[in-house]
């Protein structure tokens, strides 16, 4: 059924349709509306067979989800930003124990300085924790990915993060097609755990493992993710067969066949990128784009196949590896091992800075002319940076950087784009 609803509500619908048995919630912007909507459903009786547990912290939220999942329940939680960092130890535990928890990340920057707006710093910080990470391009895809995520998680016994851009998707009111309960039930069978804590049949979960077996446990976790490289496209195809739309998969290409310049990005910015690709194609520029949906496991072969023929690749990243540049770029370069082409990293959209068509058009034209630096910061205010660096040269006690920059900029709440 088509509905015009907020992205967070669309995700809540998907979770409710997936028949969760335990939902743990601790509020943090911008994911809060998701668990609020689920809380309302449990309280009103619209969502039955589900326990909604308010906990005292994000660490507790995921810990309770771990306990629930280990006891054989389909468990769900959601978080953002510092919330994900606070649960970091439990994030590794959930994966290490092989518990198929599904967690939404409403992507948001990490402080300091405090920032509630969107970028990918939070989920990227947990990229190697052993979770599968899927990034949604639209609210329809966010809804669909959650339904796929439970099946993926439970087939592999591996937790899955569904990442959606905070505010840009979580707070956007878009048209989404919400499936019926019968359709979701046909796609997502009841949870049959590989391991379950049961007093009648006691087992130990989470024993200490020494050097004699730790490598093998870790290898099997890696192997599990490699299996996901074939399972994710299979689920995408099965979902398409049943629901009649393409959502998920490892990557999606857009006008790449004869492209000389290909832009690679994750998440909602792909929509804007595709608009710019169309505009530039209309003027004869051979440009295309690739949206990475599955960041973990990382789709090396699929990327090599779709990028290998290009002259240059521009990786647009909403996260900065300080002291290095890009995170996604590293994987993309690895996928192109032995192939000669130009590779550019562009850091964009940090802390919610809008990524506009105008800026992207200029950027891609510069790339086309091979006039980009190895690492570019999109729309960096060079004057402010130069002034701050100069100030730091002139005196020792220059005070906190962020506040000095705010003072120089004056009122900034009024900026449009």
């Amino acid at each position, binding site marked *: 059924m*088509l509905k*015009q609803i*907020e992205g967070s509500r669309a995700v809540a619908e998907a979770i409710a349709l997936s028949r969760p048995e335990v939902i743990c919630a601790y509020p943090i*912007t911008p994911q809060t509306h998701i668990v609020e909507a689920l809380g309302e459903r449990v309280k009103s009786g619209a969502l039955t067979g589900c326990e909604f547990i308010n906990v005292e912290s994000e660490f507790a939220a995921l810990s309770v989800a771990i306990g629930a999942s280990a006891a054989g329940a389909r468990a769900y939680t959601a978080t953002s930003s510092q919330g994900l960092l606070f649960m970091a130890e439990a994030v590794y535990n959930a994966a290490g124990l092989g518990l198929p928890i599904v967690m939404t990340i409403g992507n948001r920057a990490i402080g300091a300085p405090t920032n*509630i707006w969107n970028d990918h710093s939070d989920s990227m910080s947990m990229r190697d924790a052993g979770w599968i990470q899927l990034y949604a391009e*639209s609210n329809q895809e966010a809804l669909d990915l959650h339904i796929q995520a439970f099946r993926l998680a439970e087939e592999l016994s591996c937790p899955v993060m569904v990442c959606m851009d905070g*505010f*840009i998707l979580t*707070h*956007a*009111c*878009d*048209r989404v097609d919400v499936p019926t309960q019968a359709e979701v039930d046909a796609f997502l069978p009841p949870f049959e755990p590989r391991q379950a804590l049961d007093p009648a049949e006691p087992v130990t979960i989470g024993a200490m493992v020494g050097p004699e077996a730790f490598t093998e446990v870790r290898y099997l976790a890696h192997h599990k993710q490699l299996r996901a490289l074939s399972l994710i496209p299979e689920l995408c195809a099965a979902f398409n067969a049943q629901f009649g739309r393409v959502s998920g998969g490892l990557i999606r290409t857009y006008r790449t066949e004869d492209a000389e310049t290909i832009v690679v990005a994750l998440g*909602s*910015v*792909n*929509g*804007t990128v*595709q*608009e710019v690709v169309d505009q530039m194609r209309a003027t004869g520029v051979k440009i295309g784009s690739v949206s990475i949906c599955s960041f973990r496991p990382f789709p090396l072969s699929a990327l090599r196949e779709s990028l290998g023929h290009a002259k240059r690749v521009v990786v647009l990243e909403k996260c900065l590896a300080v002291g290095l540049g890009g995170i996604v770029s590293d994987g993309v370069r690895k996928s192109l091992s032995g192939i000669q082409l130009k590779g550019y990293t562009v850091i964009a959209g940090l802390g919610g800075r*809008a*990524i*506009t*068509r*105008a800026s992207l058009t200029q950027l891609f034209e510069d790339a086309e002319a091979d006039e980009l630096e190895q690492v570019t910061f999109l729309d960096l205010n060079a004057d402010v940076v130069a002034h701050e660096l100069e100030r730091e040269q002139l005196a020792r006690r220059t005070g906190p950087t962020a506040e000095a920059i705010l003072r120089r900029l004056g*009122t900034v*709440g*009024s900026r*449009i*784009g």
Partner: protein
Amino acid sequence: MFQVRIHGRGGQGVVSGAELLAIAAFREGRHAQAFPSFGSERMGAPVMAFCRIDDREIRLREPVMEPDVLIIQDPTLLHQVDLFKGLAATGLILINSTKSVVDLGLVDLLGGTRRYRLCRVPATEIAQRHVGRPVPNTALLGCLVAASGAIRLESIIAAIREKFAGNLAEGNVAAAGEAYTMARESREAVHA
């Protein structure tokens, strides 16, 4: 694509206004996208919300940089925020005020010789009367219907009844209706 940018302050229903417009467009079978741009979420802080309406799927995720319609829910923002940035040459301005163009300071603010269409409506007063709270959003949507013709009043009313219930819904329906009637009678054009 038809694009609207709404400026107001936290607590004035800026975000709800954009959502109602998107729901109304959806009910007319069109594609729509509404989204906010918050400062830190608090009452009184400047807030923007955007709405796009199109006949095909909307992929664009940038803020509305070049609005066809600018809705100003709080005229005290006129001198604080660069409200008119990117407004289309034939753009429409809806403002929650009955002050004259001169008293609002619009002549200086708009500058140049471009011709804008302007519609002034006492949306807060209308809201106070019908809703009992200073939430000018639905009255301004009624004004949008009258001044732009981009959406039907029935769709706005249906959207209000979808999002709100009971007296709150009916109060907002009445506010939108009164502003619609008022705006139809007071269309004007300004050279700024």
